[in-house]
């Protein structure tokens, strides 16, 4: 009696094991497809629209001033490190003078030096930050230039 039951149980298990393998492989396949969907969806969209879906945002550069405290590439990649250094220099060390690579002197001040040229926060700061999903909290305290609020 018990022997039959055990035999039935084992028989019951056998075909199931084979069926499970299909489910598991199918599930894994679906997972891989979903997980990589951003890549191939992007690829598919680019086939239909004919160009890349992600575009490097176009920022509004200041018109009156041509020179910044450093090169364009450095500022694009490292401006946060520069701002961090400037913050420590101005607030903690009381040093408010920055000499750039060309020997020009600058007043270390986010609101009155950086923003006096880059007066267009929505089109300069925000476009890149938004498209890169970064949310710096500078503007919780620092005041953005008045030009933007009109």
């Amino acid at each position, binding site marked *: 009696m018990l022997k039959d039951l055990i035999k039935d149980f084992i028989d019951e298990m056998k075909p199931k094991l084979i069926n499970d393998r299909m489910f598991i492989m199918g599930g894994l396949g679906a997972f891989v497809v979903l997980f990589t969907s951003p890549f191939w969806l992007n690829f598919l969209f680019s086939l239909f629209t004919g160009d890349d879906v992600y575009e490097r945002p176009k920022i509004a550069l200041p018109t009156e001033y041509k020179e910044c405290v450093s090169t364009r590439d450095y500022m694009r990649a490292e401006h946060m490190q520069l701002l961090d250094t400037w913050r420590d220099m101005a*607030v903690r060390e*009381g040093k408010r003078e920055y000499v750039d690579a060309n020997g020009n002197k600058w007043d270390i001040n986010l609101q*009155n030096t950086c923003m006096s040229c880059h007066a267009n926060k929505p089109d300069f700061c925000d476009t890149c930050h938004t498209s890169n999903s970064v949310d710096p909290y500078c503007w919780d*305290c620092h005041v953005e230039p008045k030009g933007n609020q009109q």
Partner: protein
Amino acid sequence: MKLSRRKFMKIAGVSAAGLTAAVTGVAPLTGIAAEEVKGPAYQAKGLTAKRWGMAMFVNRLQDPALIKQIAESCHKPHNVPNIPGDQEIKWIWADSYAKSFPDSLAETAKDHNFEDLMSKRFLLLCNHCENPACTKVCPTGATFKREDGIVVMDPHRCMGCRYCMVGCPYGARSFNFHNPSDFLEDVNQRYPRRMRGVVEKCNFCTERLAEGKLPYCVEASDGAIVFGDLGDRDSEISKLLRENYSLLRKPSLGTGPNVYYII
């Protein structure tokens, strides 16, 4: 080759003379060149001191309108919000003698016209202590003493624990219970605001000293507040304090305040 003593001295002498000439000849040229190039927003070098301090002529600061004007001259440009009640933010304010100098009551009662003092108002602000309690209790180093004696707040590092407010015996610190931007009508574009959850206080106008200007309250006081270097015996403020009788707030606590009240 063996160098004779005489020859060695000759070469050494010529080299030294050449080096001196090079340094004196070239340095002014490079100095001038470095001074001439300036960035668009560059400003001249600021005021410096060994130990900044303040002295007030109490008798000249009794007009309530003047007191209000001085407080506004500070609060407006520093974006200090106007919040009524016990959650107010204040950098500079006025109070009675009993509230301002509680541990000097007995002493001054003997030596001075006590009735007269009791009727006076006193402008109060951060004392920028020699030995500040606030900086010692701050767990993040958000408040610290600069080399020129000014005790400043770095709101970037403040986490709002309010230990400094407990530590300060002068009540000079205020906590932002609200977002200060909600209470500001005109925002000064040249100075930052604060955010909810940080402590703030008078900063002896470090941003103005860096531009070579005196603090707002000193300018608004029409000469009744004197600001200067207490570390310099020949400064105007040091002379004034030698010539006049002045009070310090709670000197017995050993914090070494740097704001003097000439009575």
